[in-house]
């Protein structure tokens, strides 16, 4: 009975599949295991990187993302920073 209920709730409420949670958590976990960087450290790094970028351009902080990704034989730092506008043309921050 339980099985059927779960199935129906999936169909009608479009509940997410738990295996996707497992996969996403694993991918992040394995990267952190490998580079030995805690989520807190990664967040601090993201803060610093965006602070530097903000000296030059105005960015959409809400949609800024910094993450580590595992490829074939390497780990890459992937950063996506939507730029709103350049702060001042030609200006060099101190």
């Amino acid at each position, binding site marked *: 009975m339980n*099985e059927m209920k779960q*199935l129906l709730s999936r169909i009608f409420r479009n509940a997410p*599949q738990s*295996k996707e949670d497992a996969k996403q958590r*694993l991918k992040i976990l394995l990267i952190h295991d490998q580079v030995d960087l805690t989520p807190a450290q990664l967040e601090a790094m993201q803060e610093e990187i965006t602070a530097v970028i903000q000296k030059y351009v105005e960015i959409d902080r809400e949609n800024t993302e910094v993450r580590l990704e595992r490829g074939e034989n390497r780990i890459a730092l992937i950063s996506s920073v939507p730029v709103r506008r350049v702060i001042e043309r030609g200006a060099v921050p101190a």
Partner: protein
Amino acid sequence: MSECIVITSGKGGVGKTTTTANLGVALALQGATVAVVDADIGLRNLDVILGLENRIVYDLVHVIEGECRLKQALIRDKRVEGLFLLPAAQTRDKNAVTPGQMRELVQKLKAEFDYVLIDCPAGIEQGFKNAVTGADRAVIVTTPEVSAIRDADRIIGMVEAAELPEPTLIINRYRSKMVQRGDMMNKEDILEILAIPLLGMVPDHEEIIISANRGIPVSFNDESIVGEAYRRIGRRMAGEPDVPELDFSDGGGLWTTFKRWVGLQPAQEVAS
């Protein structure tokens, strides 16, 4: 040509010992001579899974310390030609054996048998190092769970660091119905994350517990789908890499589910 294969996982409780026992049986049923070695010193269990616990006189540590000859410690499985168990010591700890002694022991076994299968203890400490040191290659056992896959990834790195060739993977306790409804990672998900070749999959099934209760590995059972899964893995290990994977999805249909509701279908099939 003789080969030593270590069965390892990192995490405990994923089925290393059951896998070792069943692959030993599967290879022996094909006509090979096999020694299964319990490297889990202090927590031996391979003897129990094989149902040979009452026949132990000497163990691996006795052999290494020269208290008996290798042949005296090897227990012959009378159910199949060519299968022998070298049990672990139960009253000693992992430090009773050094990697050098283990390598020497494996060399002696390889001179006598086609296959030497080593049941590795859980963890990444001395016991793991002892189990891996004499091996020619490794088979990693995992289950479709976050914790088991995480540890498997760690162990793959350590196997490579030990300069063994790329290990192969057994996915244990696979539940087709959970996979079908998206509540369990499927074969492709796991292979994408661990990125090593698949050796085979074993379904989660009541028969495993029943066979452990009786001390008769399920690979001896011709009619069992789990036994067949292990026998196929055995064939792939013995040089038939293209033996097809079984389809475990039987019995998951609505009709079967309905029959189970009304009591027409015993719940004795692949677990959901």
